[in-house]
């Protein structure tokens, strides 16, 4: 069921990242209850203490809220969600930018390359 985690990076962060993405993709609806720590541990094949830590981390980020005695829920606060959206976008772009820079591309090359790629994608062409 669950894809493997990268064994050399903290699993609680990888799991938090996965859940955040699920929230943005609407696989987890706003206000939806997350699985219990134990269920999540079994589903994703990780230690329950790790899941606990993931939930705390998500709560700190604001993407989930825990209600006493009821469990953990995806936040309904739209501003938090749009912040999350912005943050993930920035993270993705920054990793793209760093990789490209490392390979010696200039900023202009990156922008034009990206534009070209997007317009090809939208025309439904397959590049090789």
């Amino acid at each position, binding site marked *: 069921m669950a894809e493997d985690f990268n*064994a050399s990076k903290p*699993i609680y962060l990888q799991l938090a990242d996965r859940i955040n993405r699920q929230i943005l993709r609407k696989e987890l609806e706003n206000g939806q209850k997350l699985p219990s720590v134990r269920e999540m541990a*079994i589903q994703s094949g990780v*230690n329950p*203490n790790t899941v606990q830590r993931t939930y705390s981390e998500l709560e700190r980020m604001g993407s989930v809220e825990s209600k006493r005695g009821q469990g953990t829920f995806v936040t309904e606060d739209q501003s938090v969600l749009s912040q999350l959206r912005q943050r993930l976008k920035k993270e993705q772009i920054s990793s793209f930018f760093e990789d490209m820079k490392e390979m010696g591309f200039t900023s202009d090359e990156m922008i034009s390359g990206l534009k070209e790629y997007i317009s090809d994608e939208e025309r439904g062409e397959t590049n090789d």
Partner: protein
Amino acid sequence: MKSGVKRMIEFNHVTKKYRSQAALNDFSLSLPAGKIIGLVGENGSGKSTALKLISGIISPTKGSVTVDGEVATRRISSKVSYLSELDAYYTFYTVGETVSYYASLYSDFNQRKAEEILDYMKLDRRKKVKDLSKGNRGRLKIAVTLAREVPVILMDEPLSGLDPIVRDAIVKGLLSFIDFEKQTLIITTHEIKEIEPILDTVVLIKDGVLLKMEDVEELRMEQNVSIVEWMKQVYQDGGIDK
């Protein structure tokens, strides 16, 4: 490790000699309650000896081992459920009879949980133990070990000799059937990759000496290494701590 966590198992300068050979040498270790702890190291490093000492079926040549404050003798089995690495069973029993036998031995044996595990492991209760495949014998052993509601569960190489699908099922089974609020699991294995995501703490042993003990997530966070990579590093450095 956080302070205030209850210590469940203590090795106090333990030496264990077999004839003249030391399997453990002046070994001190303190393990917290409520964690999944991996005991790793090469063959013959003393992992199995350490587990046997906790289970009370062997006793130290020097030093002491305590479980929940009580010195580990044979009687510690009321607090410790131990899965041996040996492929040995009472072959005259069926699967169901084996479970009933263990249920009679231990007052903390949860029959309902045992039934659940048998179902999960897809074991046929009427089958004779001697007719089971090696994989199924391994599962039966795990079922009777996990069905006990004890503070400490020890598993010596529970995954060895099993195929990957069974190994995966067993690791998932550990997550489903262990009560993490009340139980501490100590596991020795060569299949580190498989259990890596479920470990809290890893203890590395070499030649009967404790090399290092680390929180697994800290390792990944601070050193960006997996357990296997970390093991190689520490083994190369000879494990001199700082």
